[in-house]
């Protein structure tokens, strides 16, 4: 194994984005966006295409200038510093390797720019080639490499000069599923080994949850929520975040009543109890529950659970889990995901109970 740097001995940077706005003509690509990027974290910018996440990354890189607001890195205003003087590592969508240079020469490029000695460059390139597992491919041109190998060259090149920040723009979107998962592990390992601040853009929610120490969710040029993967997945701030991070069941409740640690409202003829959200007290709201937190049973279970009657409409088999499609008495559709190994198949058109622990449900404002 190559000698590995300990987290902390790298010169990871922190960046504060303060009220960043960016307009292209009449189009507002980013609206008043503030976000603290912490030293050494793995932050993912997640959102659908056109949400502003890539625009924000390009502003961080210095390839785009914000229309308003400022960027502060380690206490220094860097808003007007051009990309070439920021010296961040960057991995582009499609890798952007130099097609006329070999693997070695690609990795050596940023080191030559920094006028390092030939001996230092040779040593460092060798180290990086080994670290990303490309020994034996040093003399090849990028066109001779597979997609995964090209991706490794791009990572090695971006990290060779020990940048204080590494920016990654949808780096794995072109790879097939298995290779993508391998490269995700690789990125995670490189993050731990180098201790550098990683800012990663993706539209793939499972990639975001799997990789990041923090996820920032974008939509229509706005930052909707930033938090640890568990926070944004289990306590999304609004319906968009809840739905973007994965499938979710939404049950419309009439007037929500606060009740100690919990809140409750009526859905069909049942009282549904969920986690408290004071802001929504006394209003109509949605009870939100992830499909994997629900259980289907033939008997009515009452152990601290919510339960509603449903009719099974069909099932989709995913291997490890099976997803059941159900409909409540008044026609609200539900999805319940159950581990295939521990449940016996349920036939369509069966009437069943769907139940879930009270603490797994939470409130979202009604409407979008």
């Amino acid at each position, binding site marked *: 194994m190559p000698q590995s740097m300990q987290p902390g001995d790298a010169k990871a940077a922190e960046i504060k984005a303060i009220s960043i706005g960016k307009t292209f003509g009449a189009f507002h690509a980013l609206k008043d966006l503030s976000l603290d990027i912490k030293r050494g974290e793995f932050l993912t910018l997640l959102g659908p295409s056109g949400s502003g996440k890539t625009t924000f990354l390009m502003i961080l890189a210095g390839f785009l200038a914000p229309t308003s607001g400022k960027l502060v890195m380690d206490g220094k205003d860097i808003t007007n510093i051009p990309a070439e003087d920021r010296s961040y590592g*960057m991995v582009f969508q499609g890798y952007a390797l130099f097609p006329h240079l070999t693997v070695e020469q690609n990795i050596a*490029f940023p080191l030559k720019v920094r006028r390092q000695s030939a001996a230092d460059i040779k040593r460092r390139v060798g180290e990086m080639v080994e670290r990303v597992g490309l020994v034996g491919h040093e003399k090849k041109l990028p066109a001779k490499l597979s997609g995964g190998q090209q991706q490794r060259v791009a990572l090695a090149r971006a990290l060779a000069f020990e940048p204080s920040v590494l920016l990654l723009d949808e780096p794995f979107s072109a790879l097939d599923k298995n290779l993508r998962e391998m490269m995700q592990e690789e990125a995670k390992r490189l993050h731990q080994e180098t201790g550098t601040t990683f800012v990663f853009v993706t539209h793939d929610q499972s990639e975001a949850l799997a990789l990041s120490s923090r996820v920032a969710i974008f939509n229509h040029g706005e930052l909707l929520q930033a938090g640890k993967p568990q926070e944004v997945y289990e306590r999304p701030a609004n319906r968009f975040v809840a739905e973007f991070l994965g499938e979710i069941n939404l049950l419309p409740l009439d007037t929500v009543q606060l009740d100690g640690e919990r809140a409750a409202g009526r859905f069909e003829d049942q009282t549904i109890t969920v986690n408290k959200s004071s802001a929504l007290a006394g209003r109509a709201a949605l009870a939100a529950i992830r499909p994997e937190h629900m259980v289907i049973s033939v008997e009515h279970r009452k152990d601290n659970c919510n339960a509603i009657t449903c009719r099974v409409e069909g099932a989709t088999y995913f291997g490890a889990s099976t997803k059941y499609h159900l409909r409540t008495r008044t026609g609200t559709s539900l999805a319940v995901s159950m581990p295939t190994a521990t449940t016996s198949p349920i036939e369509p058109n069966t009437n069943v109970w769907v139940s879930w622990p009270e603490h797994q449900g939470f409130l979202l404002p009604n409407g979008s």
Partner: protein
Amino acid sequence: MGSATSRKFLLLGPLLLFLGLAYVVPFLGVVRWSFTLPETGFGQYIAVFTDPLVQSVFVRTLRICLIVTAASLITAYAIAYVWVRGSSVQRALAEFCILVPFWISVLTRAFGWLAMLSNRGLINTWLQSAGIISEPLALARNEFGVIVGMTHFLIPFAVFPIASAMRSIDERVLLAARGMGSSRSRTFWTVFLPLTYGGLIGAALIVFVFALGFFVTPAILGGGRSVMVAELVYLRIFQSPDWGLGAAISVVLVLFIAILLALLRRFIKPAHMVG
């Protein structure tokens, strides 16, 4: 071979027929003259490689063509750069500069340059009336005039392959270089320029081969004093009735170009793979 393939050959038919009748058959006649006039044998070919006059014309032709190729490539590179990467106004202007020469005949352009460059032409008149020079500069009726006129004619032909190579460069590759701290000039010399080598080689080939056969421009701007190969062939055939020598020079020129094309084809392939 499917019928669809043979139908496509049929579409090529008129062109092949025209090339055969207008070029190949007459050229075979020229080849015959070169071996038969005034008497059968290799005499004219021996003359081509030993006659000092023919030799000096060949050397001058090569020299002029190399200079013209270099000058055209440098100018065309700058124009192509503005055309591909400039602002919309700059692009329109570059396009205008590239296309307008195409609409003006080679003869008109040669006389235009004569009006600019000759002893009593615009440039010399201005410089003299401004008192900068007392005697007119020798700008036309010499190699300099020929080079200027030919370069002007050939620049647009060099622009297209270069611009096409520039267009195929992935913008992100240039961003990547910048992001790694590379200055604009370093990015140009180490990334942008190498990625256009394929286009440059293609452009050089087109310009050089085209220049080898130039006739009108050197005849007018050279004023009979810097004769190039094509003009020499013309003189041998129309002015001194020396058809055999003229024919032999033509055959050597055609063979030279064919060998050049074959060599450069082999050389250009790896360059294209990289570019």
